[in-house]
């Protein structure tokens, strides 16, 4: 135990015995919290980003780069706010992204490949882990959620594309398929059929983004960074609200209904 740890326990007025119990409690809570963070982040992402990160042939230059970081920063910000507000623990964003990544790989192995026979090359996930770590680092350094929103939010949105491009770029090599040019990702999406996912439901660069030519990726990344600042702020504040317990006043009949013994004289 370091001097700092002892100073914390002293400030908390914990005896060595209570500190030991508290440590056991820590272990239990960490495990439970991990599952909670994991599941909430996963469900949130599936509901709002879903297909854009399921399949390699959905990872386009516009919506994948835009939607995936904006959605994933939401749970990162909310959990960061909760961990920071209550415990001054700057690990909420990193834990959210890391647990989500572990969960995604488990699902990709067991559900997508194991049960539906989709090869992993079709369903490799992207991750916002680097941006999430940057959020936590900046929060520690600045001690300010506003500065974290402005700088961390921008870094989160901007770093998503280059980080994931390091390992996803090979999927965008050109190849010839049935007399047409296609990316390897397109071919993987075609070759391993998804009966319920026809090609036309992919939303690939709809709009005028392609007027930016080869820079479309970076235009999306900068816009994503801009939106991430606001998404972070909104969800940070929601996390803070979640840390503030509120009680609804109820009458004695309601309390009796739930087994409370009401002293008639006190009424």
């Amino acid at each position, binding site marked *: 135990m370091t001097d*700092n740890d002892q*100073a*914390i326990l002293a*400030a*908390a*007025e*914990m005896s060595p015995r209570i*500190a030991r119990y508290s*440590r056991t409690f*820590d272990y239990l*809570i*960490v495990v439970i919290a991990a599952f909670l963070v994991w599941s909430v982040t996963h469900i949130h992402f599936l509901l709002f980003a879903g297909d854009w990160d399921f399949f390699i042939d959905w990872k386009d230059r516009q919506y994948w780069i835009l939607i995936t970081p904006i959605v994933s920063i939401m749970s990162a910000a909310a959990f960061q706010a909760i961990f920071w507000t209550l*415990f001054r*623990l700057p690990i909420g964003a*990193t*834990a959210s992204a*890391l647990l989500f990544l572990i969960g995604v790989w488990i699902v990709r192995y067991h559900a997508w490949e194991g049960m539906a*026979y989709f*090869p*992993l*090359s079709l369903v*490799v*996930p992207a991750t916002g*882990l*680097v941006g*999430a*770590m940057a959020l*936590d680092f900046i929060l*520690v350094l600045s*001690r300010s959620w506003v500065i974290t929103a402005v700088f961390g939010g921008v870094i989160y949105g901007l770093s998503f594309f*280059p*980080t994931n491009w*390091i*390992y*996803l*770029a*090979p999927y*965008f*090599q*050109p*190849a010839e398929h*049935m*007399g047409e*040019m296609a*990316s*390897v990702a*397109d*071919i*993987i999406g*075609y*070759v*391993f*059929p*998804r*009966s*319920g996912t*026809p*090609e*036309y439901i992919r939303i690939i*660069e709809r709009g005028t983004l392609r007027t930016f030519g080869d820079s479309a990726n970076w235009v999306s990344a900068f816009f994503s960074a801009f939106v991430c600042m606001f998404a972070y702020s909104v969800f940070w504040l929601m996390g803070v609200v979640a840390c503030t317990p509120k009680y609804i006043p109820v009458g004695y009949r309601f309390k009796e209904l739930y087994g409370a013994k009401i002293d008639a004289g006190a009424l």
Partner: protein
Amino acid sequence: MKKATLLVWAATTLLFSLMDQAAFAHGERATEPYIRTRTVHWYDVTWSTDALNVNDTVTVQGKFHLLNDWPDSVSLPNLVFLSNGSPGAVMTRVESYINEIPARQSTKGLIVGRDYDFKLVMKARKVGQWHLHPVMNIHGAGAVVGPGEWITVSGNEADFKDPLTTLTGNKIDDLQTFGVSRVQMWQFGFGLIAAVWILWWLRRPLIISRWLVVKKGREDLLITPMDDKVAAALLVLLAIVVLVGYTRTTSEFPELVPLQSGSLSTPPLPKPPHAVEIKFKRAEYDVPGRSMRLSVEMTNTSDQPVSVGEFTTANLRFINKSLPAAVAAVSSKFPKELVPRNGLVIDHPEPLAPGESRLVNLDTTDAAWEVERLVSFLSNVDSRMGGLLFFYDGKGNRSMSEVYGPIVPVFKKTI
């Protein structure tokens, strides 16, 4: 008695747990009947084989007709995608065509009332017995599943490979595994840094102690100067890793392309021979008798006498067994469950002479109406039926006519 009941219960449970529980269905009967009977009608569908080894291919080909009586509530086939129905990626799709035009992407502008041919080439990947259908996905309407055949795949799954050479000359050994280890390696690396950061904090007094310290306003104890240094160092480390990694990747793969999106178009097939004009009179579904009866006025507009050979709807083929040409048109390999045993019964089966008009009652009685879940069309807001009638002249030449109209549920015979 109680013991015997328990024993039976246990034995039944054991039996069911040992039986193969795999679900083979993949929604071929799930689409509403008014879509299956009034949109895409598949015909002349064949499978090149029903047994193959891993890496062998099977070709599914045939034609489909888009019925003129397309339901109002279903989007027109302005954008479609030809696919296959099978339980997951048990087979890979090698090629697909509509009217010999590659259908790698979606096809736009199909015309209602016209015919198209299709071809799917599939390669066996997973060992087992798989139901393989052609499927037409219609934007805004969903999937219309064609007839399915059971395909038996044997061999060794480990032998399956799908190699590819890119336009830049890079050789990919197998698309199934391509790039996966690179993704895992990098994500594991980032995960390791994240884990170090989390453990850096978890090793200290955590929940209650930190909460109490926060309450007392002693935050200076919770974040130390060393924490600042570690955070700054890791931030710089990550920035360098990402910058170097991205730069090296762009130089390693200088020629990259975005995802390819778009749609193709193709004109329909020439109109097939049309020897008989159909005037719809009445259709009813006899609920207790499981019989769909049609009353139509047929007029032979050709110069040859013709006979009714087949009525097809929702992949069911009701064959007039008294007409050899119609019977011969059904391949022995066509799925038996889609050819109802009772066939098509016609009250006036004699050939229709050139120029002749005749009121004809057609009877299609079979449990297949129930089995294929087609009777719920009686509860639709738009209770209509549709299908194709095939006619044969004395030389065995085939012509096709659409038939469609409202359908009435009845509980006793009226026509």
